[in-house]
């Protein structure tokens, strides 16, 4: 047998094996940002950026005794044609598929929008769910979660502001109840200013400016230019897949709360 055929057969077998390994997940995989999964395309970039930034910070937090770490708060949005389609989604399954929070210390917030998914601007928020991981149940009860939803997303406040406040209220619970902070302060007036002045590309200005400076600078050495060029090519080439947040492997037992708008 010619070597080329051997290679062909080997590659076919590997491909067959990998195809067999692919699991049939019911729901889409989380995005690379992990903390924000805006499948309905309804969240504004400023809020998405806040969710990711706060999510990454929270994930790094470790309790004083070192027992608790890797807490994750994840937001997801889905667009459905009608309210009856919402029943096709099992929030617990989504939670468990994404594996939110280390040692079941996670919170999943899901927004369901009704309308034509090709027209995000016309989608209407219909239902909001908060589900907790097994261990997180001790810190965030359905009653507390319900009250938080009533004070945020169920008010007449602008949806971006109420989503941000929902995030901050959940962070307050986690930092105070779980990590035993004395308080967790946030200012929504300040946030409104941030929202109004947010530059979609602002988060990347500093790092990309530095990358371009090093690559073009006559003072940087060849290997610095090379490493940065390769890193930049990889990040652009695979859609930012190099830096990827992932779930902590947590599970939920279906404890949660729902609100209908």
């Amino acid at each position, binding site marked *: 047998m010619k070597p080329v055929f051997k290679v062909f057969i080997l590659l076919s077998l590997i491909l067959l094996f990998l195809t067999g390994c692919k699991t049939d997940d019911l729901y889409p995989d989380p995005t690379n940002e992990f903390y924000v999964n805006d499948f309905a395309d309804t969240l504004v970039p400023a809020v998405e950026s806040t969710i990711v930034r706060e999510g990454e910070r929270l994930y790094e937090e470790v309790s004083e005794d070192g027992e608790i770490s890797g807490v994750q708060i994840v937001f997801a949005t889905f667009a459905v044609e009608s309210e009856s389609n919402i029943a096709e989604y099992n929030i*617990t399954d989504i939670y468990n598929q994404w594996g939110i929070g280390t040692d079941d210390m996670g919170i999943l917030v899901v927004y369901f929008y009704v309308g034509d998914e090709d027209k995000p601007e016309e989608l209407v928020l219909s239902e909001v769910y908060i589900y907790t991981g097994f261990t997180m149940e001790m810190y965030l*009860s*359905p*009653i507390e*979660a*319900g*009250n938080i939803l*009533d004070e945020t997303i*169920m008010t007449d406040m602008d949806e971006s502001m109420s989503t941000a406040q929902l995030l901050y209220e959940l962070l307050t619970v986690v930092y105070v109840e779980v990590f035993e902070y004395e308080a967790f302060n946030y200012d929504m007036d300040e946030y409104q200013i941030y929202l109004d002045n947010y530059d979609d590309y602002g988060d990347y200005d500093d790092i990309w400016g530095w990358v371009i400076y090093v690559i073009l600078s006559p003072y940087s050495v060849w290997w610095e230019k090379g490493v940065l060029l390769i890193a930049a090519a990889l990040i652009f080439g695979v859609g930012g897949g190099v830096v990827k947040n992932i779930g902590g492997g947590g599970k*939920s*037992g*279906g*404890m*949660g*709360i*729902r*609100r*209908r*708008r």
Partner: protein
Amino acid sequence: MKKTTIIILGSVIFLVVFFGISLLTGYNKLVDKDVSVDYQYSVIDTRLQQRYDTLTQLATAVNGFQAHEQTIYDMITSAREAYATAKANGDLQGMIDADALQSIALADLLVLFEDNEPLQATQAYGDYMDAVWGIESALSEARRQYNLSVQDYNLYVRKFPGVLYASLYSYDKEYDYWKVGADATDVPDIVFGS
């Protein structure tokens, strides 16, 4: 040693190793699936205890508003006692019946709440409804996971080669599903807000 003898000896060793590994992995799979059913059962048990606590709080909260509340309170208590007795006797159907009885008590309690305007106006009302929704959601999920693990186990011990391992290691039992009435498995449709 002749070449034929080596081939025969090699084949015998291969078969012994192959069947040895199969017996080990088959046994481990049986144990995994059996333990999974036990674990999921323990989750239901915990959730039922949580629901009992929630219902008791609810029944206490409506105390004094309606004459009907004592009947519901009795129903919750007797459902809990029936569950404890069935659990002590290893009577799964008895536990499922008690679960269903608690669900009926919950439905009655919710009707009582809906008819009770002074109570509805309180913050406590919303909190109770949240507690009920949360625990019913978790219980519904626990039942589903239990039934999935039972299905996984039962399928394995019925199909080949699991049926051989089950017979060999005396895992001849099959688990019953946790089937309560269709109404009882649903999370109550409580409407909040505007």
